[in-house]
């Protein structure tokens, strides 16, 4: 099973809503990751603000950061090798690397349905 790691940059808030505008890319990546996890893939994300240690310990990430600075983030690592830096992978890239049908990556997380008895 392939192992995928994504090293995110630090953001004012991780939802990005405190930023200048909402990044659709962030939500896209979030749902792709969700789909992959649901399919049992080993996917981990590290946020610079929460897990700075990982950015030091991971030699590959550290190296690309030393070379390119913060611009290198986000960094994506597949089975220990950097496959992409400076931006998030596209859905096609995810599907190539992990041999998943790109269409399957568009699943939305399930929403619980609540029924308000008073309103029935």
């Amino acid at each position, binding site marked *: 099973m392939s192992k995928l790691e994504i090293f995110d940059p630090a953001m*004012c808030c991780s*939802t990005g809503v405190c*930023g200048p505008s909402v*990044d659709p890319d962030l939500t896209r990546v979030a749902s792709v990751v969700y789909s992959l996890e649901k399919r049992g893939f080993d996917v981990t994300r590290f946020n610079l603000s929460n897990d700075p240690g990982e950015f030091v310990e991971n030699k590959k990430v550290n190296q690309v950061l030393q070379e390119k600075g*913060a611009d290198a983030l986000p960094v994506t690592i597949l089975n220990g090798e950097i496959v992409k830096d400076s931006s998030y992978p596209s859905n096609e890239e995810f599907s190539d690397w992990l041999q998943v049908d790109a269409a399957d990556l568009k699943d939305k997380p399930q929403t619980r349905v609540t029924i308000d008895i008073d309103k029935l």
Partner: protein
Amino acid sequence: MYESFNPKQVVQTPFLFFTGKGGVGKTSVACATAVSLADQGKKVLLVSTDPASNLQDVFKIELTSDPVEIPSVNNLFACNIDPEEAAKTYREKTVGPYRGKLPDSVVTQMEEQLSGACTVEIAAFDEFSHLLADDTIVKQYDHVLFDTAPTGHTLRLLQLPTAWSGFLQESTHGASCLGPLSGLGEKKDLYAQAVRSLSNGEKTTLILVSRPDVSSLEEANRASLELKDIGIQNQLLIINGLFQTQSPNDEVSTAFYERQQKALTKTPVELKQIKTLSVPYVSYSLTDMDSLRHLVSDKPFAEIEENSDDNEIIPLPGLNEIIDDFSAKNTRVIFTMGKGGVGKTTIASAIAVGLSEKGHKVHLTTTDPAAHLAYTFKDGALKDNLSISSINPKTEVEKYKQEVLSVAGKEQDEEGLAYLKEDLESPCTEEIALFKAFANMVEKSQDEIVVIDTAPTGHTLLLLDSTETYHKEISRSTGDVPDSVKKLLPRLRNPKETGVVIVTLAEATPVLEATRLQEDLKRAQIVPKWWLINQSLHATETKDPILAGRANTEKRWIKKVSDELAEKAAIIPWTGEEKIGYAKLKDYIRN
């Protein structure tokens, strides 16, 4: 009329939190309460968070974050927590170990992230929780007094059940304000207990402190409702600085009295339901034990004989000089900046009127819902070369929230959505939403001077700044920065194009808050041009003994502003009437 606040009769719970807008005198009231309780033989701990506090001078002892016994008052202990300092310590603890291990640009990115208002709030709450939840503290003291209270936003974040479910680790959408506090999970129980103590009416009293003025009453009401909503029901309102004995032959004195009374009639309805007590307006500064004791005694007095042979008047120019300066230099964008209640909207309006009188084409725009421009220019006598617009913060924030939820919300599950919504309640959201609206406004107004009655903080500017290297990352990862914003930032930094006027009052807290604003702006490479001291009693000719005493205490703050803080300083005398309408606003220019 209100009964006088006397802690002996009122205080029943072990924990007391004082809350209110900056400058309403929370620390003084808390301090007087602490001394009064200790005098009754209760063992009291006073937790101060006010960095402007002169408590060290009052107590004549160095305060640290560990409680120390106050030698001059039996049973009184005090400690001082500086939330900014706590946040800095936290920031250093988080970022420090990575200096040298990660490149500078990466470290800088982490630092800026932890510089927001939320980090400061949470860091302060973290310090509180130790005291609230620590059994040895609770058993040791009869009363623990905090001179500030956490906001509803902080408390809601801490209550969100999902905050503890590991959601933070698993999701990319961790709540912003909690996200940076790693290791928070370990503190789950501590925080939960702190929140429980806070909302237990037998343990905690929330004391809302307000001045008898409209904006601080509104702020007290907002805090009251928000904290009630989160379960803090046991509340008390203190009107601090109630002027009770007017001198009939002194115009300023009469106007001062009437202005307060008028403001009190406008107390929000909900706030009227809360038990209300008053603390008198006094001529003296609260810098020693006796004055503090008198402030909350059975018969508080307003005056202390002070030798006032010091009749020195500090000469500062009026608003007209600011207007002349901007007019001569042809400044294109003018911000008036300052905390709520210092009068920045009126000043912005007066600057706009002044410039238009000088023949400039001016556009004035404001966010202040309390002083809509239509109201400020009530007589409708607008000149051809002056146009006005108003930005409603509520509408802008709502619009922004809808936009965010429609883009990001549809991909979320329930928990994610709850987080997203809570993030949207953060102070940053409002700033960003407003700044975008302002940028659009400035963009639209070509060939005219734009006067804006508020300004974003340095933190927001830095976040929005796509030209800074380390923010390229942020702007990329959080979507596109709108063009109007991109264009505005370099203009703001150019002193030839932009002038910032910091508006303040000649009192400790407003001056300190303004100092912070200035530092924050400098961080974003914007240097305020002018400081304007508004509503100064020192600049009036009042002979009323209480007001004249207060005018005297203003001097040290006026000096501090003109000698230390401001590039250029100006002053406006206290007036009883609000300047409403074009003609009245012109009064300011005639100084």
